[in-house]
């Protein structure tokens, strides 16, 4: 009994006096809320961090007296953590990466990489560092630097970094987290489709600007962008879209009709004597949300017209998009390679290193089947 008491006392004393513990008061931490990777004018890696200033969060003041709720600091370095070390030199509190919500990659960084290696090289830290959050959303900055996006002030949230995942959600896209990036990036072949953001020309505000295409076969270099409208269809094919509004405006319906649908997709990969063959079917069921045509979507006669013209118009967009991917970018942005991998694992071994070449000549057919179950709250057009 006595020895137990003495041991316990010694252990406690040892723990207290050696101060060998992990205790860090929250106000000893500089919480990194967003991180940015850029290449600066000199061609060096520049890491920017958006750091929350907690006093700005809790103060009740509004107006000019209100403290800023964040600061953006940048530093260059040989790699991520080296730059982090240099960042630390500007701060009185320890950098804390575990609450990072967003990773932004500047356009030049994405285009060039460093020393002819793509951004893949620098992203190791995000998974390797145990103090790093892999549930951050990752974005490519179109026409700009990550640093500048970090400095913009969003409308609702105090911080741009927490706002960006909300942007995707409100557009009906599943947020693209770093872990998804990782699982897309690790398999061989094809290309990545990452969300892109840009600064509005008027300045100060950000804008969702479609998707960036990064070629996995060329060390993850940026090869182009999809427009926002195209990105919805691309995400639909990839199964990342939760809600989408399809609008048809043509002579057949003599006006315009919008349908808000819950998308689903079905991709069939087959193999015959001529090689692989892909058929993409996009389904969508939803509600008519706007009708500026003389048609009455509640009647059986017009239902067919509306559905077919909507499907037709969306179908044209989809085939245009597929054509663009095959001919302009020559990159598999839809993740069809992964489906081939699953269905024909034997063939994939030969195909994986040059999958994009195979993809660009692949016969891909597509169709869109849109339906609505609810013609909306009124019958005829206003």
């Amino acid at each position, binding site marked *: 009994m006595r020895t137990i008491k003495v041991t316990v006392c010694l252990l406690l004393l040892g723990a*207290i006096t050696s101060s060998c513990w*992990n205790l860090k008061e929250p106000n000893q931490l500089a919480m990194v809320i967003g991180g940015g990777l850029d290449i600066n004018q000199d061609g060096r890696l520049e890491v920017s961090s958006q750091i*929350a200033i907690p006093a700005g*969060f809790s103060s009740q003041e509004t107006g000019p007296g209100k403290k800023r709720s964040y600061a953006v600091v940048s530093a260059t370095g040989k790699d991520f953590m080296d730059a982090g070390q240099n960042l630390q030199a500007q701060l009185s509190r320890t950098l804390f990466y575990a*609450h990072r919500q967003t990773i932004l990659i500047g356009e030049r960084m994405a285009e060039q990489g460093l020393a002819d290696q793509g951004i893949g090289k620098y992203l190791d830290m995000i998974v390797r560092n145990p103090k790093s*959050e892999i549930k951050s959303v990752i974005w490519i900055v179109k026409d700009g630097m990550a640093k500048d996006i970090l400095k913009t002030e969003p409308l609702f949230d105090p911080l741009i970094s*927490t706002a960006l995942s909300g942007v995707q959600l409100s557009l009906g896209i599943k947020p693209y987290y770093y872990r998804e990036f990782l699982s897309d990036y690790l398999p061989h072949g094809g290309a990545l489709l990452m969300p892109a953001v840009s600064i509005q020309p008027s300045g100060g505000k950000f804008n969702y600007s479609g998707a960036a295409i990064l070629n996995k076969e060329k060390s993850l270099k940026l090869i182009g962008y999809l427009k926002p409208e195209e990105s919805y269809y691309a995400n639909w094919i990839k199964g990342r879209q939760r809600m989408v509004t399809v609008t048809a405006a043509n002579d057949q319906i003599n006006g315009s009709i919008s349908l808000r649908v819950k998308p689903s997709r079905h991709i069939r990969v087959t193999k015959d004597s001529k090689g692989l063959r892909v058929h993409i079917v996009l389904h969508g069921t939803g509600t008519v949300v706007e009708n500026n045509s003389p048609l009455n979507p509640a009647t059986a006669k017009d239902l067919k017209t509306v559905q077919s013209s909507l499907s037709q118009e969306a179908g044209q967009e989809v085939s245009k998009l597929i054509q663009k991917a095959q001919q302009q970018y020559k990159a598999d942005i839809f993740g069809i390679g992964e489906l081939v991998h699953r269905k024909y694992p034997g063939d994939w071994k030969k195909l994986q290193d040059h999958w994009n070449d195979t993809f660009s000549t692949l016969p891909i057919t597509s169709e869109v089947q849109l339906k609505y179950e609810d013609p909306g709250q009124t019958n005829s057009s206003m």
Partner: protein
Amino acid sequence: MVGPHLGDNEQTLKSIFEHCSDIVFRRLSLRGDDKLLLVYVDGMIDKELVQSSMLKPLLYHGVPQGLGVLDSLAQMCEQELVAALVAKKVTAFEECTELILRGQIAFLAEGEASILLADVSQFETRSIEEPSNEAALRGSRESFTEQIRTNTTMLRRIIVTPDLKMESFHVGKLTKTEVILAYIEGLPSPTLLDEVRTRVKAIDIQGVLESGYIEEYIEDTGYSPFPQIMSTERADVVSAGLMEGKISLLVNGTPNVLVVPMTFWDGLQAPDDYYERFMYVTMNRWIRYLFALFSLLFPSIYIALTTFHPEMVPPKLMLNITGLREQSPFPTVIEVFMMEFMFEGLREAGIRLPQQIGPLVSIVGALVIGQAAVEAGIISAPIVIVVSAAGISSFVIPRYRFGYPMRMLRFPLLVMSGLFGLFGLALGLILILSHLIQLNPMGTPYLEPLAPTKKNKLRNVLWRRPRKRMS
């Protein structure tokens, strides 16, 4: 031994009761030269009864006539013929003194070598009131009183069977407190019954003022923060226990009745759990379980998460907490300790304060601890929330004394989590759990039916089953 001479006996009694100003010696001379001495404690007998049904007949009509012809007082004493329900003839002074002190009246007659004692005791007692510490929305409003006879009658009124046994013991050299062991014959296991009986008999103590004395003597593990014997002031709770085959110990002079054996889950059950609809009760039970856990763990979890593992707190919450902590001069652990001490102080003050200035505590407490300390920048606002939430939730536990271990063990857990974070907290919890599993009061595992698992009984712990399906 009592002799035949009244004068001698009186002398002996007077020397026993020397300097006892409340003992009354009343000499009477009846017709026929009979000499009679009454001895009683002033204020403990029913004077009305003694005057009207004992003294008056004796003085006016002489010796009462019984079945046969009585000539003298001595014969009256011989036949125990007084107008009282309980009468007894004793020959030893020790027994006589004790009974006098318990409120009986002693009749000593000339020429009689024994003393007749009649139970006419009556003294001021508190009436039956509502239970003050175990409130329930539904169910009997009667609570036990200090008078053991009142308490036993309350049980008798509920359980009407001769199988309800009440064994009486006297404990304490000075107080000779009556302790009654109540049980329903055939329900508790004989070994348990024997065990309790022997433990009560073995108590060697000067005085018993409260059932807590008995509790400490008969409990298995004194060095435990957890109560292992249930104490209640509600007759319905004791009756329920008796019907479940438990044994209860009533102690004279206290309204708190002990029920053995007790398990951990008994501490979290409210009296009206079995009176109200089973669905509400199940919900309430879970609220209680969660809040009990919450009151034990919340401050330590807060410390561990914010100072050791800030990555586990949702980012926006972490930012808010950090923002509110910007100006705090003390480390989080110290802050929580300070506030916990203040809270416990307020709680204790709330019990001890005279009723007239009771509201003062709440006002001053709320102002000092809540607002002023935060505004002055001594304490950060989240700590106030954490400590008061944990404090209040410990009062969700229906048995007040079962909240004590939760509040007390909070402090070691605070130290552990302040030193080692979640790791320390886990370590502390493991220690507490292994202690609980080791407890085995009166041969019943403390955590039963959870550990060891008894599926059938466990259902009654997880949710209160509908009465028709209760086994």
